[in-house]
């Protein structure tokens, strides 16, 4: 019998939810685990970095990385894992497009550190410790995995949903691999699989989720919730809209939409109405759109490092 393929699961600047998401596979997880050997998975098994460094190049069949890249150590580890792996998968929204921690890129690093630790913070070794015991330096900004290394596949989601994880393992274990760059989700918009009915095709108010118990049948955009379904990939089964919550875009934008924020601005510009269109409605339309208090955080909740560029270049 041939040796089982080795897999690794690594976390960088994440919350741990991606590691937990494997459990959602239920009994199917046992089938998967029976067919692979875990070479490295800090959440589950105790393998030291020095052991990973001793692995032969490309000896791991697939490494699944979750989390945003936030520290110098994150970067070192993903380069190491890239060298040791045949395939690297960006697992979850953070590794794919920067994720929620990527929202921190709105503030410069020093400002973040001042906010978190009031008197400023510099990584330092613990009392009596060696210099190498100091925590790693923060990068100037959070990055997606593909900003550092070649990424072969993506399993999107925050965290990835069982059907999407299943698609990845089906491909890896069958050897029937899709083209490089494949994203394990639908190319079509979430609306295609959302059971809610679109009636008005108008946005006549903007409400936040806590302000409304939505009608269970009607499109959430029609009810004034800013749902990112029109620009977001399907594949999750429209889990959030089914539960009365607007889509926040965790699976990432459809290939057609591209930049999710700009695509949503385009869509909302078409949909928003405050009475009869015309100069008399301009002020009311502006007021309506002002109720969308944080366009940046709403549209780029999971993807700011990928899409938002700032003034002054990279300096």
């Amino acid at each position, binding site marked *: 019998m041939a040796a089982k393929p080795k897999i690794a699961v690594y976390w960088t600047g994440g919350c741990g939810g991606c590691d937990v998401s494997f459990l959602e596979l239920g009994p199917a997880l046992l089938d998967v685990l029976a067919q692979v050997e875990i070479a490295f998975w800090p959440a589950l098994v105790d393998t030291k970095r020095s052991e990973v460094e001793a692995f032969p190049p490309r000896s791991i069949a697939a490494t699944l990385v979750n989390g945003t890249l936030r520290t110098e150590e994150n970067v070192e580890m993903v380069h190491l894992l890239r060298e040791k792996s045949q395939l690297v998968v960006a697992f979850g929204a953070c590794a794919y497009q920067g994720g929620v921690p990527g929202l921190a890129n709105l503030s410069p690093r020093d400002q973040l550190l001042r906010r978190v630790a009031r008197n400023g913070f510099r990584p330092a070794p613990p009392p009596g410790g060696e210099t190498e015991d100091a925590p790693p330096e923060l990068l100037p900004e959070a990055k997606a995995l593909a900003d550092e290394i*070649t990424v072969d596949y993506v399993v999107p989601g925050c965290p990835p949903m069982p059907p999407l994880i299943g698609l990845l393992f089906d491909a890896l274990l069958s050897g029937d691999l899709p083209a490089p760059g494949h994203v394990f989700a639908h190319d079509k918009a979430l609306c295609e699989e959302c059971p809610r009915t679109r009636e008005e095709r108008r946005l006549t108010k903007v409400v936040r989720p806590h302000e409304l118990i939505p009608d269970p049948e009607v499109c959430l955009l029609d009810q004034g919730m800013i749902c990112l379904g029109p620009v977001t990939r399907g594949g999750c089964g429209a889990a959030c809209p089914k539960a009365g919550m607007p889509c926040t875009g965790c699976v990432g934008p459809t290939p057609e939409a591209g930049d999710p924020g700009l695509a949503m601005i385009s869509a909302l510009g078409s949909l928003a109405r405050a009475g009869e269109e015309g*100069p008399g409605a301009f002020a009311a339309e502006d007021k309506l759109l002002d109720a969308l208090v944080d366009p940046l955080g709403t549209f780029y909740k999971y993807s700011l490092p990928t899409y938002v560029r700032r003034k002054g270049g*990279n300096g």
Partner: protein
Amino acid sequence: MAEAPFEPRVVAFLCRWCAGAGADLAGTSRLHYPPNAVAIRVNCSGRVEPEWVMEAFRSGADGVLIGGCHPGDCHYVSGNYKTRRRIYLLKKLLAEIGIEPERVRLEWVSATEGAKFARVMKEFVTELKQLGPLNLEREEEKPSAAPVLPQVGS
């Protein structure tokens, strides 16, 4: 040697029915206005995607002008109303990112308003000179910008 004074680069999306014709009139009337804009004629200001505005910035523009028909005059009835709402939202987004919303300017210019077009260009370029260069991160500096990921082994 003294550094050359900053000349803002402007991309102007002009609708063919009103603002584009107004710009033509400014030219045929021999009106003087700063030559900082690259004009792109579109069928309707409502065709201008927010993505195009950002692409102009990413490509080195310091300001983007969108010229459409006056309210009530849109050849397609309501394209200019859609673009007005889109630009309103886009400016809110730009402010959050830290880009001056004044770098995007929406103006209604009719086919007879060559003089207004010239005035708008003068005002806009003056304002952009005060704002200074934008220097947005360029596309090529940010490899993850494209949704297509790099090939294996490349």
